[in-house]
């Protein structure tokens, strides 16, 4: 359902050209849970941004559910993002002025969903992440882990088929990180496709499919045996941010 063929992304400043991605190829099937690892600056985030249509790509073919993304204009990508993709960020990116309920409501409003329907969905999502009682709280009244669970609820509210997570546990301690990971796994079991960028080898190991981005190119490992992953993890250059 997600297909990238020979995707390149070049950042052009006045003097320097930087190839963030080059000849990047990836096929993702429905229901997959993919962990993306790689050293800092390897192009992980660029890949995720392109997958989420937050950034245009320079060349190549990218289709999502059979739609050729390269041909869409800004409004169309915005709509597609709204319908199909949920984002989870390292910094949570909740809007500080809005309470939890209203934060989750944001994508639903852009989707043009009716008020009563919105209410049902928000309550359902808050329930799912275990924060139903705190709907009226503002983000800063919550702990980091709770904030990330709200962000996940927000990502889920639009019933997206894709969940893109960029270091979702990067700002959390290990206990909270594990809780968030369990939540993501549960969501994956419910049918959503998840692509997660992470630095944490332990988390990566829990994902059924691992890919590694090195120098803007893909090294794909579909592993079902922990042994192999360890071998690869050992061979890959480990860079901590």
């Amino acid at each position, binding site marked *: 359902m997600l297909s990238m063929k020979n995707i390149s992304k070049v950042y052009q400043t006045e003097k320097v050209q930087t190839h963030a991605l080059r000849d990047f190829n990836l096929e993702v099937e429905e229901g997959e849970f993919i962990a993306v690892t790689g050293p800092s600056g390897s192009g992980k*985030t660029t890949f995720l*941004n392109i997958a*989420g249509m*937050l*950034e245009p790509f320079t060349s190549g073919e990218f289709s999502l559910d059979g739609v050729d993304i390269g041909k869409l204009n*800004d*409004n169309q990508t*915005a*709509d597609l*993002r*709204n*319908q199909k993709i949920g*984002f989870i*960020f*390292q*910094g*949570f*990116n*909740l*809007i*500080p*002025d*809005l309470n939890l309920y209203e934060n989750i409501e*944001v*994508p639903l*409003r*852009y*989707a*043009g969903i009716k008020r009563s329907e919105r209410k049902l969905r928000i309550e359902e999502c808050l329930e799912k992440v275990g924060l139903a009682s705190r709907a009226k709280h503002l983000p800063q009244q919550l702990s980091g882990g709770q904030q990330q669970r709200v962000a996940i609820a*927000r990502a889920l509210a*639009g019933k997206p088929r894709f969940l893109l997570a*960029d270091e979702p546990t990067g700002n959390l301690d290990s206990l909270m990180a594990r809780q968030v990971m369990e939540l993501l796994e549960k969501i994956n079991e419910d049918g959503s496709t998840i692509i997660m960028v992470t630095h944490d080898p332990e988390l990566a190991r829990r994902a059924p499919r691992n890919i590694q981005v090195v120098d803007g190119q893909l090294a794909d490992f579909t592993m079902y045996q922990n042994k192999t992953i360890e071998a690869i993890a050992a061979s890959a250059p480990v860079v901590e941010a």
Partner: protein
Amino acid sequence: MFTHYIDLAWRSLKRTPMVSILMVCAIAIGIGITMTSLSVYHMMSMDPIPSKSDQLFAVQLNTTDEGTDWWTEDNIALQLTYKDAMFLHNQESAFRKTASMKGMATVHMNNDELKPYLAATRVVGHQFFNMFELEFIYGGPWTIEQEQLAAPVIVIDEETSEKHFGRPNSVGEQIYLDDRSYQIVGVTKNWDIHTKYYDLNNGAFSGVESIFLPITLIEAQQLDNSGNTNGWKFEEIDSFESYLQSELVWLQFWVELPDQRTKKDYESFLFAYLEEQGKLDRFERKTPEYKLRDVNEWMEYNRVVSEDNKVLVGLSFLFLAVCLANILGLLLGKFLKRAPEVGVRRALGANKRQIFLQHIIEVSMLGLLGGALGIVVAQIGLWGVRTTNQEYNALASMDLSMLLAAPGIAILACILAGLYPAWLVCRTQPAIYLKTQ
């Protein structure tokens, strides 16, 4: 979605109260100052009789020698001589017309009940009321026969009637001007016009008269002109008769020409009249010169809107521009600070149009608040104008159109100032702001 944007805008304003107050105050002051001068300008320049301002014409005839200087821009006197005005007044015609003079009289009831007072009067033909849309509530104008006979009849307004008789309907009653008694034939409603466009000689805003007399009484009762009298050559004037026959100009003349054809015909009539008068040795002038100016042209020609006011309107709009530059700077800072939030919204599916709209609605709300507060500032300003210059009492106020214009201009101005910041913020790449907060 719209109400949601309004909600968002309100929250955003509340989040940075100091900046919001600063911006609202800047707009309010800008709008307040602009509306103060604009309201006065609006009242001054307003068409006083929109239904037929293009059909009423002030007549000017040049009955001076060639080379005579007058202070008007085309060197033609503003008023007519008595003989010319009465000739035009008495001419048979299908259209309405009237000569007009400002008089002054001591008004009393010939008893001790009412303290006598001095009042300006308007001495006109019976068609004056119809021409200038002064409506009667009781009775009507004097008849053409009464006018021809110079009958002592009078029209007063409702207020005068109340003052003298304690009731609005006083038709048939007698009232005294100086030493003569007049019979009231009609009571008009109180005339509510700001600009005394039918006679601009003694101040365009000096207030309309409330007592009206037939024009033929000038001769019959030797009424004095209390408006302007101007002469251009020396004449031996030793009697009222010689005063009436003199070349002094002291009457206004208005004509209501309903269409172009009638106007054309009237113009050739005036031309012929002047040509004939020129032959009588009244004045030395090769080609007859006359002017027909409609109400708005007449006001423009008489410089009803003062230069000072035009300068002030111009300066206050420049002032508003300064306020806008100020706001634009503040908005830039405010909006760009919010780029990360916009990034999140973009990631969650907002398109550029929605982001743009959200911010434009926020600045519109600033404009609305500033405009509303601006009305308050303008009211203070107008109060200042009224206390400084009594003549502006009726002018220094905001009518409905100005009350609506204030927030209108404020919102428009704010949108103008907000366009660039809103555009800047909606076109930022969302990805940049998502990685870290």
